[in-house]
């Protein structure tokens, strides 16, 4: 055993340059190398992807990773390439047809194959997958099966069938946050009655102070935000539900502070997104105003705060997003800005994304004519229809979904309004038994002030000023670029 431990460590050093595993990693890797399928629930920032990457390296067989977001996949491909891995590819609908075809025809040449779930509808791809001698099938962000599955990514629901078709390869389902209900959903959908190992680490991140700031108006929210960012140690991340607002507030913060601020969202060109991500990673930006498009693959260790300008849809997403802070273990803070009307915005989003009974009936009555013309809602309806579900069953599914979403919203509102320890509230929500020892560095109880000084999060240093604009004249840049 000792011997194999040493071999594992040597492989870790060789391929990734680390001397020690982080908590949970070794347990997962041991399981997988012993051919045990595993559901791993580890908080963000604990190095989940390293687990399957190392198993792929050690077993010298291909690893297939199903991932829900193109941006996330591209980030991970880039990170693997950065680590010197050349045989890696992301097969998504964004690839031009001829390139997709090339990749499918040469699938065996790749060691790490990232797949968007919708790609699994392609018969030739699935046939090509069957021919591979897989080290591992990975389902990344596995909570999508439960949380996003019924809403946005029906294809995730078909992963159980894919496993069966591929003769039950060793599978690693990864997620950062999963309540017992979600974990059960994942098990049922992916593994049915198969015996698997579940590795769960606490969702709690003790070095992130939890705070909620209630405000009475949009204006008061902006003022509070300006106050916070002026006071807090950078770098920081501010999350928004809308691209427009992210741009608007980035502008406002540039005007009202001396901080370097940029916005980041799916509306920007790939090249601008790259630039902002790199600037932020290398400490040239103080703040990024982002939508959820930012972050999944961003591995910046020293983010000191995550502020939510809008109300997240549920505690799972909230935990995912604040998990970007303090990956270096240093004291950090998560602040949720809350205005009463924010809840209405979330409620209307729920109504907008989930079709009502009349709409469902209308769609089912006119399905032939409407297929492919009703946007996301239609896509999901179409999926259910093809599954042979009746109108009544579909109505029932959506109404359950609506109820779940509303209950998720109530949970996050309850987190905001809790009179007790916020950390305890979260742990309880995720079914964790241990209680926190509340103290001044734990969370802000309702009505209390944030203890900035005690947290040592006050910005006492000179601001970054205009680091971004230090590139200089063209001569200098060219000489710097090419080492002349």
């Amino acid at each position, binding site marked *: 055993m000792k011997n194999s431990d040493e071999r594992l460590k040597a492989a870790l050093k060789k391929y990734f340059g680390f001397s020690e595993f982080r908590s949970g990693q070794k347990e997962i890797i041991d399981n997988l190398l012993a051919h045990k399928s595993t559901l791993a629930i580890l908080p963000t920032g604990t190095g989940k992807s390293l687990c399957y990457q190392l198993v792929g390296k050690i077993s010298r067989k291909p690893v297939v990773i199903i991932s829900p977001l193109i941006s996330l996949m591209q980030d991970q491909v880039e990170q693997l*390439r950065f680590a010197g891995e050349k045989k890696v590819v992301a097969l998504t609908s964004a690839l031009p047809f001829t390139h997709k075809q090339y990749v499918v025809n040469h699938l065996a040449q790749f060691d790490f194959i990232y797949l968007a779930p919708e790609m699994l509808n392609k018969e030739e791809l699935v046939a090509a997958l069957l021919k591979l001698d897989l080290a591992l099938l990975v389902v990344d962000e596995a909570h999508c099966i439960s949380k996003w599955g019924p809403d946005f990514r029906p294809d995730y629901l078909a992963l159980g069938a894919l496993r069966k078709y591929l003769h039950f390869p060793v599978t690693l389902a990864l997620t950062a946050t999963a309540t017992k209900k979600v974990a059960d959903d994942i098990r049922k959908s992916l593994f049915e009655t198969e015996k698997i190992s579940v590795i769960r680490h606490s969702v709690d991140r003790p070095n992130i102070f939890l705070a909620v700031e209630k405000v009475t108006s949009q204006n008061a929210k902006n003022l509070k935000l300006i106050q916070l960012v002026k006071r807090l140690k950078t770098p920081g991340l501010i999350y928004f539900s809308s691209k427009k607002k992210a741009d608007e507030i980035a502008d406002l913060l540039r005007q009202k502070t001396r901080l370097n601020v*940029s916005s980041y969202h799916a509306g920007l060109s*790939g090249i601008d997104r790259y*630039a902002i991500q790199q600037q932020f990673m290398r400490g040239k930006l103080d703040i990024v105003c982002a939508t959820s498009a930012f972050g999944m693959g961003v591995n910046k260790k020293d983010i000191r705060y995550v502020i939510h300008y809008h109300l997240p849809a549920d505690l799972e997403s909230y935990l995912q997003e604040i998990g970007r802070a303090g990956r270096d273990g240093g004291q950090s803070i998560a602040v949720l800005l809350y205005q009463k009307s924010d809840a209405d915005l979330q409620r209307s989003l729920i109504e907008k994304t989930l079709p009502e009974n009349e709409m469902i009936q209308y769609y089912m009555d006119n399905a032939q004519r409407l297929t492919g013309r009703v946007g996301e809602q239609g896509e999901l309806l179409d999926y259910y229809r093809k599954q042979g579900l009746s109108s009544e069953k579909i109505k029932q599914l959506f109404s359950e979904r609506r109820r779940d979403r509303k209950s998720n919203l109530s949970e996050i509102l309850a987190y905001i309004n809790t009179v007790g320890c916020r950390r305890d509230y979260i742990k309880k929500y995720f079914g964790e038994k241990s209680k926190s020892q509340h103290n001044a560095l734990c969370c802000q109880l309702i009505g209390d002030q944030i203890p900035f000084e005690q947290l040592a999060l006050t910005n006492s240093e000179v601001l970054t000023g205009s680091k971004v604009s230090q590139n*200089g004249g063209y001569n200098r840049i*060219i000489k*710097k670029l*090419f080492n002349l």
Partner: protein
Amino acid sequence: MDELLYFFSKTQPRRPTVVRQVLSNKRTVSNLFWGMRYGIIDWLAVCPRFERAKFDGEIKELIRRGRLIETGDREVLLTETGVKQCTAFESQHYRIKKPAIFGALKTQLWQELLRLLVQVISEASYHNRRYFVVASSFQAQTIIKRWYKENRQYDLGRVLGEQLLLFLENVDRQHADIFMQLFSGHDVIAKTIEQVAADTNYSACDVQFLWEDLSASLAAFLYNGSSIFKSLVAPLMASSRLSKSAAATYGLYESGLPLSTIKTKRRLKESTVIEHLLEAAIFVPTFDFKRLLSVKDYYVLRQLFQGNIDNWSYKKLESVEPTVSFAKFRLYQIEQTRLNADNISD
């Protein structure tokens, strides 16, 4: 919006539709001819994704603000205010200087290749192999990988540095500075278009135009030079401004084949062959008009038409000499435009 004023004239009534279609590369012979008459044919394909509704809305607004005035028959003229506004706009904003290259170059792919090339060579100049590659398509990455493999034995950093310095020597200093700030490389992070705009007096749109213009000009510079980078640009640069099909037809025409043979060989309708030849007449400086226009044609046309070419009407010709086709009439207009280039109003 005011940048559109540039495409209109105080004296020559112009159709906004033609301007839009030239900018977005709709290559009908009529568009190309009028683009030539308006003196804006070099702007062909500069804005391939210009939305019709957006364009029409902007023209409407320019009319509402009194910068353009409608003159009937869907044509407009620049007003005195429009001229002033145009001049004022030009002094504050970036204007694309070499639009003609846009029509010949696969601009978007080139921009991707250029960013990637600079990064790959920059990192190699520091012997660094671990870096995050700038956002780029699979196609661009494949091209650069292949090209780099074939050429990495050369001192690429030094050569590319020299080529860039040489190219930027003849570019306005501020523009050169802005251009180079848009590249990432070893320990150098690009600024975004918005960030550059915030640091200068330019709008984001200006910086975008500057980037597109200078990267296209750089492509032409490398293409016309003899450095190692020529081989990267050449496959992206069209040798003629003709569409592929028109170029094929013109090739046969140039080799001396009669129209009837060209028609059979190309399996095209005669009218299509003629359209291709009209396109060639517009774009090919050495086009031989005399092969299609007889001495008699010239005589008739010369008798009937003098003065401003814009005002010539085929109806007038048809009523006098119906044997001279519309195509011949148009060819004569093109030839005369060429000969009287000075007559083109601006």
